[in-house]
């Protein structure tokens, strides 16, 4: 019994000299997985045009009803997006969003992508609503390459996108 007791003490003592496994979060941030679904971004094409064509398929696919899309006709001379329409308003309520990624799947132009940012705290409910100016990537970045997960997608729409509109 004494032996077992000292063995136990030895085991705990051994851990005293080990490096703690704790990741001290605000200073040290663990990298997320490639497929991590964090904050949304609205992507652009390489020529700077918005990918979003205002089809609202994402809003239809959203199980939490977190997305609001108000489309508008493109100006022929200065189009915002390559199609006929673009999203005049695009809002995501981050309090409703469940980060399921169905909007990504539903998007025909890979405009909306759930990126790796996950620090999404806010002080009031109003700032939980992320509007288009916050979601749309700046014109000088974020265009071109789409994320690897989406690149390989020569894909059929996932089930939520097949919902009867």
């Amino acid at each position, binding site marked *: 019994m004494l032996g077992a007791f000292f063995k136990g*003490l030895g085991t705990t003592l051994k851990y005293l000299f*080990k490096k*703690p*496994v704790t990741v001290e979060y605000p200073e040290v941030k663990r990298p997320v997985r490639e497929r991590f679904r964090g904050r949304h971004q609205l992507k652009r094409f390489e020529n700077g045009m918005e990918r979003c064509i205002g089809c609202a398929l994402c809003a239809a696919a959203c199980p939490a009803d977190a997305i609001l899309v108000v489309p508008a006709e493109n100006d022929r001379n200065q189009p915002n997006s390559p199609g006929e329409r673009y999203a005049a308003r695009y809002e995501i309520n981050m309090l409703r969003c469940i980060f399921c990624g169905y909007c990504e799947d539903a998007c025909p132009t890979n405009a909306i992508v759930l990126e790796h940012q996950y620090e999404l705290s806010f002080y009031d409910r109003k700032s939980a609503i992320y509007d288009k100016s916050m979601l749309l990537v700046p014109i000088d970045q974020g265009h071109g390459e789409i994320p690897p997960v989406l690149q390989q997608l020569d894909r059929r729409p996932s089930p939520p996108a097949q919902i009867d509109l």
Partner: protein
Amino acid sequence: MEFWIDILILLVRCLVLALAATTLFAYFTLFERRLLARFQNRVGPNRAGYIPLPGGKKFFGGFLQPAADAVKLFFKEDVVPEKADKWVYLIAPGFAVIPALIIWVGIPLGTWPDGLGGNWLHYAPVDVGVLYLLAVTSIGVYGIAIAGWASNNKYSMIGGVRASAQVISYELALGLAILAVVMQNGTFRTEEIVAGQGMMWNIVPQFLAFVIFLVASTAEVVRSPFDLVEAEQELVGGYNTEYGSMKFALFFMSEYIKLVAMNAIAVALFLGGGNFPGIDTLVASLRESSGDTVANTVQGLLTLGAFLLKTTVLSFLSVWVRATTPRVRYDQLMNLGWKILMPMALLNVVVTAIIGVVMPTGGVIANVIMFAFGVVVVVVTTVIAAPKHAKRSVRLVRAGTGN
């Protein structure tokens, strides 16, 4: 006039001691939390306050954690349960914390002569100092018992009852272990017991008593692995379930101050108190060269330092044991107290008496015999009393042998 000045000095000294004990408690909680965290492969509280070092390094992160905890507890809502016995409920934390604080006056924390034959670091050098310590440490259980009763909650009640049963059981072993020390040193005065350990600390001749004291004192302050009083799985929070805010903090405080005080008593009785090799020589040479005042101050600080160092070592041991052992079962607790520790302590008293009669001058041989006796008894007892594993009643038979 003289009288009032004496009273004033006494009051200031008491205030200093009370505040010191409270600070000790605060930093012991931090010590324990950090250490326990490291034992469990965690970091522990390291956010509240740090000492900035050059180069952006942070040193001693979390040293304001106790202050943060205290502020938090002060601002919590102070609820008195409707069906509680209000006055007893309110008075119970005081009952718990006052004994924990007044233990300290009986412990010689060091030797700092005040020039008038007194000692700044020993508040109450009474004739029966050891008995005082024993009495006050066990009075503390009243607080727990009446807290459990007054809360009008069955879990608190059971916690309080368990506490009283446990403390009564282990009081005997504790008292007998200390009795052997008293026999060894031939005095009830704590400061004389400390002074008598100048050459040889009591842990050597009274090794068995030391082991018994460590186990029994852990049980006496209801600490892991004997913390059945607050066994969360069975009793929610135990006797302090219904207490919140500062009233809870007082229970917490009394528990930890008692723990440190028990360690301090163990240091005074077994580890030579403020004695440390070299201090005496240094102080004697200082007394020659720089006079009494300097020598007294240096002696006081050094002995206090040595005392606190030893107390820290024992406190480390407490945390270490807490990090290692699971809680014992109630019947195991009672068995350990009554069937193992008490007979061991009685045997120790008998053997101490015999050695004291046969070799009244003591000396190295007596110490070696006592030490060997202590080690043998501890080992033999643990072998005999170890839990027996029940034999397998079903014989494992290889499949296909037909038997």
